């Protein structure tokens, strides 16, 4: 088959059409991106709001993914050791990995990071204080500006520069339940408040729905191809909250959000992401008219990729499925290749699949394994060739 344009390939997979090879989407966290980019002599490696897609395109990504939600504000923001940073959402973030470690010790520690190999431990940004703890807080809370040009202008530029060739995806994560528990309220508090003060939880979710709906409308107006909503409701072995609760708290709000996006652009593709095992709500996700959803953490609850694909593969396109918890950071080159082969056999056969590791590639993955991953996808991701013949 003639080689396709990346955006046509990506759209082809979403429409379950015949395409030349499995489209792919690699994403990196900052430290990993810097490490891998150096191998290719790529120096433009910004992540988050300054995202530069050079490395990802070099590795054959068919789409450009740009993140503007609450996660983009926090997870890519450089926070100096010992300091905190307050985001536009009024959430306070600090850096982990530093308790009991002085600046000097930290420098020493950084020297021990293996440049070519996996990093040993990467300090991460984490929320340390949450703005809404009571009805009073909710009343006084001001949501950020959903028309902020700081968020929207870079998307316009990306579309102008890349959309002829590549598929443009804008990521609004984290969007609803996750934004509420992880950022706005705090996890334990959120779960207890679901029972103690359901109106407070509903108020927070309504606020988020309003903010993200308006932000998404503004993004859709820019002519992007896909909006990605990321909302982690899966834990390793099961969902975090029951499917019934998700149906009550999340589903109608997502339904509203998606229909508002599609009022702006009826052709817009929608992706819904959750980490962990959320297999009980895949039928609901299909019902919401979602085009693409991830098959996350294959080491977790529902490992039956073939079964899920057989059951829902005609109704939705899947992305992901390669283990990033053990296989990618700790497997040998052979193990990585075998992992890619498995995923292609389970999910790639018959189309309607986009290859991706189950999540971001983190600094714990060696350069060698990223290369092995890249080569294996080249080898096993071509339609008409083993294993996709």
């Amino acid at each position, binding site marked *: 088959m003639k080689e396709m344009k990346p955006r046509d390939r990506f759209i082809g997979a979403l429409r379950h059409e015949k395409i030349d090879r499995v489209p792919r989407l690699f994403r990196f966290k900052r430290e990993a991106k810097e490490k891998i980019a150096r191998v290719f002599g790529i120096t433009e490696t910004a992540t988050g709001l300054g995202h530069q897609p050079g490395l990802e395109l070099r590795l054959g990504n068919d789409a450009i993914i740009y993140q503007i939600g609450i996660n983009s504000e926090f997870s890519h923001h450089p926070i100096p050791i010992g300091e905190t940073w307050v985001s536009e959402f009024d959430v306070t973030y600090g850096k*982990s*990995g*530093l*308790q*009991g*470690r002085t600046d000097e010790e930290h420098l020493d520690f950084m020297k021990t990071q293996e440049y070519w190999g996996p*990093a*040993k*431990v*990467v*300090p*991460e940004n*984490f929320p340390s204080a949450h703005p809404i703890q009571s009805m009073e807080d909710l009343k006084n809370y001001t949501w950020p500006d959903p028309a902020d040009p700081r968020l929207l202008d870079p998307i316009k530029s990306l579309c102008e520069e890349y959309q002829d060739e590549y598929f443009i995806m804008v990521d609004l994560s984290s969007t609803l339940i996750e934004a509420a528990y992880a950022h706005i309220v705090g*996890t*334990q508090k959120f*779960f*207890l408040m*679901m*029972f103690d003060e359901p109106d407070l939880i509903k108020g927070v979710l309504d606020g988020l729905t309003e903010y993200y709906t308006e932000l998404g409308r503004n993004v859709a107006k820019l002519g992007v191809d896909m909006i990605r909503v990321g909302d982690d409701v899966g*834990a*390793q*072995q*099961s*969902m*975090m*909250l*029951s499917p019934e*609760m998700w149906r009550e708290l999340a589903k109608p709000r997502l339904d509203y959000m998606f229909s508002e996006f599609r009022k702006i652009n009826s052709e817009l593709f929608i992706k819904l992401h959750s980490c962990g095992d959320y297999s009980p709500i895949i039928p609901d996700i299909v019902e919401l008219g979602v085009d693409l959803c991830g098959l996350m*953490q294959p*080491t*977790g*609850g529902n490992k039956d990729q073939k079964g899920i694909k057989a059951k829902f593969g005609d109704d939705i396109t899947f992305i992901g499925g390669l283990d*990033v*918890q*053990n296989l990618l*950071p700790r497997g040998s080159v052979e193990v990585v290749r075998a992992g890619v082969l498995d995923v292609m056999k389970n999910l790639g056969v018959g189309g309607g699949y986009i290859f991706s590791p189950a999540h971001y590639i*983190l*600094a*714990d993955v060696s350069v060698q394994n990223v290369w092995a991953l890249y080569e294996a996808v080249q080898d096993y991701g071509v339609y008409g060739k083993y294993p996709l013949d």
Partner: protein
Amino acid sequence: MATPELQIPEGWKDRAPDGWDWQPLWEAVERGHNEFTHDFVTNAIETDIGPKIILDDGLFPGFNLQGDRFSEQIILIPEMLITARAMKAGLALIRPLLAAMAEKPLGHFVIGTVLGDMHDIGQSIVTIMLENAGFVITNLGTDVHPDRFIEAAREQKADLIGFSALLSTTVYYQKVTIEELQKAGVRDKVKILIGGAPTTQEWADEIGADGWGKDAIEAVKLARTLVEEKREAWA
């Protein structure tokens, strides 16, 4: 798998005053009604029911039922959290009474999330479960430097140490923490349990932990077994 059922303690009526009924407390703990639990246990104490009886006949049935359901994923984190909170409300009232009776704890357990990792919901559920099972817990919180595990283990003369890691980039610190415990001469005085989403039995074996808990229920079972096993004595 059998659907978990309420295990009614055999002969509970013989241990309670005439006309006493634990049923409302079993249900309150099951449904996570912490205020009701607090009031009911207060009343039981005032009625002169022994603290051990309140614990075994009154509090545990509803709690164990939810624990079993949690283990089978019939209920999930939110429901388990409110039940644990109700259990805690009851326990807070009877713990001083149990201590006064010189009821010996099962063991001292130091718990925390390893350096670099801020996830705490899993380890806080494990903490409550262990407390309820009768362990004395020192919870060091999240992002815990190995030195703090060593200090706390020494101070508490700990029987067990448990550390959690939720990121593939921080599980390595479980290994480092064990190595540091070894260097400090503490390793063989304690039993070590690990847990967290990216961890496995193989990883536990590789880094020389004594046990791996797939979930909170498993962790408590393991702790009960391991605490009986032989260790070097604290000086």
